[in-house]
């Protein structure tokens, strides 16, 4: 592991842990006998936009899912805002991969966004005008207002992704975790999503994105977390996103020329 993190001000102190919107310690996840994520530490910088990058099958999504308790880790502790995640669920919003659901499910766009208000509504609370207004407002922020009454099966991939983003916005969280939001979406959607994420950051929220497009990392993000089963590097883009860290994470999978180009872009 390259010890970049500690040299760049993200110290492993208790203070850093207490302040971090998401701190993961010693997380190991395994499907069967082979660990997908092995003893990973992550300290998400508050107010930053962090890209989680690594080759296919490096455990990016798995790490996120385990941190949220969607898959059960073998070991590890996770805190959010200095407290156990379980007490902070309302402040943590998650946007799953859009391929993880069946889009023929009988539901409309607005109903999906209303799922984001699940906690507010409770078990028996009545759906009121203000809930709908809020859902519409979230749809508006992702440019999907006009789609509110359409069946979700009629949406394109990019539009589905924006509906998922709108659902997470409805939650008014402080930490947003997105799993491959740019996978297989059109350019217009990518622009719309990144604009929303930047506005979240400007509002002081923290954003963590599982990302696969190395070419856009420096444009979109200010922090990176490189993983290949183990943590490879963590820190601000200009320090942690370099030729060495990329080489370490991707090994022979990236051509040297490609790495040079990327790290030049990273400055």
């Amino acid at each position, binding site marked *: 592991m390259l010890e970049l993190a500690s040299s760049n001000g993200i110290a492993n102190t208790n203070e850093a842990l207490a302040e971090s919107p998401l701190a993961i310690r010693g997380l190991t996840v395994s499907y069967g006998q082979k660990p997908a994520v092995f003893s990973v530490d992550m300290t998400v910088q508050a107010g930053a936009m962090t890209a989680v990058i690594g080759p296919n099958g490096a455990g990016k999504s798995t790490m996120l899912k385990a941190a*949220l308790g969607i898959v059960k880790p073998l070991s590890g502790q996770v805190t959010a805002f200095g407290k156990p995640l379980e007490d902070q669920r309302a402040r943590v919003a998650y946007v799953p991969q859009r391929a993880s659901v069946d889009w023929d499910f*009988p*539901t*409309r766009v607005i109903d999906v966004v209303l799922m984001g208000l699940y906690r507010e509504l409770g078990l028996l609370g009545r759906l009121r005008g203000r809930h709908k207004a809020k859902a519409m407002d979230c749809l508006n922020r992702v440019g999907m207002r006009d789609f509110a009454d359409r069946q979700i099966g009629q949406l394109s991939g990019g539009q589905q992704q924006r509906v998922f983003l709108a659902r997470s916005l409805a939650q008014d969280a402080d930490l947003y975790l997105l799993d491959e939001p740019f996978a297989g979406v059109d350019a217009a959607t990518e622009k719309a999503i990144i604009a929303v994420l930047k506005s979240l950051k400007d509002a002081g929220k923290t954003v963590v994105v599982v990302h696969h497009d190395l070419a856009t990392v420096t444009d979109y993000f200010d922090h990176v977390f490189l993983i290949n089963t183990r943590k490879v590097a963590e820190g601000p883009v200009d320090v942690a996103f370099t030729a060495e860290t990329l080489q370490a994470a991707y090994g022979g999978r990236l051509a040297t020329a490609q790495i040079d180009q990327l790290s030049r872009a990273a400055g």
Partner: protein
Amino acid sequence: MLSDALLLQLGYNATLVAIGAALLGVSAGVTGTFLFLRKRALVSDAISHATLPGVCIAFMVMVALGGDGRNLIGLLLGSALSAWVGLLCLNWLTRHTRLAEDAAIGSVLSVFFGFGVVLLTVIQTMGVGRQAGLEGFLLGSTAGMLWADAMIIAVGGGATLLLILLLRRPMTLVSFDPEYAAARGLPVARIDLAMMGLVMAVTVVGLKIVGLILIVALLIIPPVTARFWTERSDRVVLLSGLAGGVSGFVGAAISASAPNLPTGPIIVLVSFALFALSMLLAPNRGVLAAILGHLRFQRRVHLRQGLLALAQGQPIYERLTLRLLSRAGFARADGVATELGRARAAKALRDEKRWEVVRADQSHEAAAALYDGLRDIETVLTKDQIVDIDRRIGGPQEVPA
């Protein structure tokens, strides 16, 4: 006769059965919807078959204790217990072994049912004489239904519906997006178990009327029927309850209207009839609608292509296109455009350009998503928007409508 039955004029037992079956149908339809949305419809088959050993063991225990082996509450408690064990086995197999759920369902279903049949045979050779009627749980038997039996169904069904009212939001969320539900802190495994517990309750309650082999039909067919009519999960739930209730009531009435018509199977057939009608006639997802829609679509494509060909002075070879053009008065039989045809062709060409602008403009995204190369642009944009687009295209603004 049938009208008498439908109006509850066939006497005490028939009335009791009809009301009981309607209640059962509603609760099975509503409960089954969540199973269907969760894509675990067949789990109900495993659960229902797993009731049989419990029924038999309960009978033996009650006889051994010197009581009446046919006490319905006792039998139902036994069936619930063994269904629960079957459900836990199923969950364990899916979660902790490499068996996929379909294989696990097959194993649990056959083993529990097989064991139940063995016990049934043992009881028959016990020679107590009181055992008559246990086979009724296989396919249901309503002949000797009592007021108390109907009450059990009413109370059981009502309790299930109340629980569903309470759990409908978490169950819908878990059905649509279990990962998101888990991330929100919902106990997904427990909600799933609760869902299956409700299915078990309906199964147990329905043993008397429909029997364990056919109860699965009442859990699966109504939601599938309802799905044809709506795109909203809450309405699927309501329509499914309605379809189940109607099936139960009408089925029970039909079976009461003539001798020797078994109640459970007739209920299932009625519910299938509703399904078949829905499959054929439903407006958007139905088979007829799909065929008609395809034909209409084909015609619109031909007409549009024909108009564009006229506008660009290209020859038209396809006979269907020519026929449609001349029928609409756009062209003569030999393919030469009429006055009207030329005007409409120019409009079609203009619309193509307008659509190009709309599709390139992010602010028109919702309209652009409706683009199919066929639609008149006035149906998606306002006059002002079209004027604005025409200004952007430039060129002569006079386009006949």
